[in-house]
């Protein structure tokens, strides 16, 4: 059974608008952010028009309803990735989720040094000078800069797994890179620039064998394929709502319950406390401990609807659909002279982020001509600048897909590239 893209498209009001003087919108930038179906917009609006109130902060009927809607959203998101509700922390985006883990290490380290109160098992997060964090050369800045910052503040050392010429992790080096000083291995599930899907289980097993924790950046996997945290075996997972047909302003951190329990707070304030005096405070259990302040309530409701929408389609069918589009895009682009794929050319263990460069045309100029055709792609370094450097390109042009894309969209991309080549006189 394949997706009924026509029916799906009619759920997305924005797809019926035109761009650049009446051109059909060919949106191939879902890797940056996805569009939201009517079902998500309606759920959020319905909530705001009937049950809006501050969740976890009142005893009146609206507050009860808001709290219930918020917690039902948490339960639905948990189920979507095979987790328990109490293991899901809502953040503003995936970036905050990754920073939350990085700051848990920082705060545990600083508090331990001053004998400040910490949860019983917080030593798992206490870093010593020379401890190591291992990432990869295909990380989004969101899974690179927070670790650079952590290292700059603690004396920990950042290491990374390099890449092969065909866009895969160079796992041959893993034995050397993973040491008994490695405290955390953090890596991307599906690269947002190369499209590579990394072998999570293999890396996780080896990391665990060395006593390291594992954080998975699932920004580009959760929206596009079935993901089950227990099956993957990782310790933490971060992703965003806005790439999975949900609202902006909400992201998720999943963490194993015992680990979350051992982490000191990150952002502190209201509703993450247990008791407060002017002299000192104690903290609530997870997930509340990590959700200071009035949370993203209506956004959680919207995200719940997005998860339902995707579940109704079936994540395996979503994956199949995007796999087919990816194959079509790879073949179509490679059929053009002067076009080079950056990332795996082979449509196995890869998802639908198709990056490429065209001889003689800078990605910005290519993107401009495509945009003129109504084809919206992303150009630049895609927040993975070191990955561009690794492949010796200043930037790439990237097409990404979602459930509302169809064959015509891919055809429009390939034709647009050809037109740009003619326009700039490079063929």
């Amino acid at each position: 059974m394949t997706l009924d893209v026509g029916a799906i498209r009619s759920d997305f009001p924005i797809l019926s608008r035109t761009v650049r003087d009446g051109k059909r919108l060919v949106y191939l930038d879902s890797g940056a952010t996805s569009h939201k179906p009517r079902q998500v917009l309606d759920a959020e609006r319905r909530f705001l028009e009937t049950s809006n109130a501050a969740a976890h902060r009142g005893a009146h009927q609206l507050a009860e309803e808001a709290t219930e809607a918020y917690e039902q959203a948490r339960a639905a998101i948990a189920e979507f990735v095979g987790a328990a509700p109490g293991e899901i922390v809502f953040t503003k985006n995936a970036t905050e989720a990754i920073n939350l883990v990085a700051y848990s290490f920082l705060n545990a380290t600083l508090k331990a040094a001053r004998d400040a109160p910490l949860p019983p098992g917080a030593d798992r997060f206490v870093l010593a000078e020379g401890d190591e964090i291992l990432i990869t050369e295909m990380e989004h800045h969101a899974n690179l800069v927070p670790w650079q910052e952590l290292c700059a503040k603690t004396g920990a050392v950042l290491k990374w797994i390099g890449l092969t010429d065909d866009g895969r992790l160079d796992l041959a080096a893993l034995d050397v890179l993973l040491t008994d000083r490695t405290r955390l291995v953090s890596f991307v599930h599906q690269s947002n620039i190369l499209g590579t899907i990394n072998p999570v289980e293999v890396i996780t097993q080896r990391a665990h064998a060395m006593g390291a924790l594992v954080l998975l950046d699932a920004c580009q996997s959760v929206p596009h394929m079935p993901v089950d945290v227990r099956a993957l075996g990782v310790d933490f997972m971060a992703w965003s709502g806005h790439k999975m047909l949900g609202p902006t302003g909400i992201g998720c951190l999943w963490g194993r319950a015992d680990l979350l329990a051992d982490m000191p707070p990150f952002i502190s304030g209201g509703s993450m406390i247990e008791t407060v005096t002017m002299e000192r405070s104690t903290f609530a259990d997870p997930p509340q401990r990590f959700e200071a302040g009035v949370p993203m309530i209506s956004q959680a409701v919207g995200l719940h609807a997005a998860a339902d929408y995707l579940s109704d389609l079936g994540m395996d069918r979503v994956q199949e659909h995007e796999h087919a589009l990816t194959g079509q895009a790879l073949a179509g682009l490679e059929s053009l002279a002067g076009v080079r794929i950056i990332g795996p050319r082979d449509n196995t263990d890869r998802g639908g982020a198709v990056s490429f460069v065209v001889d003689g045309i800078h990605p910005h100029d290519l993107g401009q001509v495509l945009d003129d055709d109504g084809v919206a792609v992303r150009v630049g370094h895609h927040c993975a600048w070191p990955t561009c450097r690794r492949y010796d390109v200043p930037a790439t042009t990237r097409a990404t897909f979602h459930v509302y894309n169809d064959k015509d969209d891919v055809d429009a991309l390939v034709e647009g590239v050809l037109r740009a080549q003619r326009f700039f006189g490079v063929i």
Partner: protein
Amino acid sequence: MDVESMYQEVILDHYRNPHGRGLRDPFDAEVFHVNPTCGDEITLRVTLGDGDVIEDVSYWNQGCSISQASASVLFDEVVGKTVPEALATLDAFVELMHTKGQAEPDEDILGDLVAFSGVAKYPARVKCALLSWMAMRDAVENAQKEEPGHE
């Protein structure tokens, strides 16, 4: 009005004249529990006797009528029972609280706790009703840990 079904006379009686209130010595374990959203708090002590019998529960608390009355009923219901019996009552009470007022409460197990079935309709108040009971469970666990003979 609905609120009347919540504030049963039994509850208001226990609230006005709480049973067993006050902290007593000696005790096997003491815990402090708080409801962070409203500030209700309880300090609760348990004394275990032979055969895992709960000899005494003494407490000092502060809070609304529901949390105060529930502590008073707790005193009535668990003192003299064995730990497993007390925990069975707790389980039944937790279940009652999570049915949103739909279930038919079992008076044999619950005793005066059946009066709290109206509370189940108000999720924000469920924590008030359970505060002392969670404290009791915690205290009993601690007491059993500290005295290996009880395990």
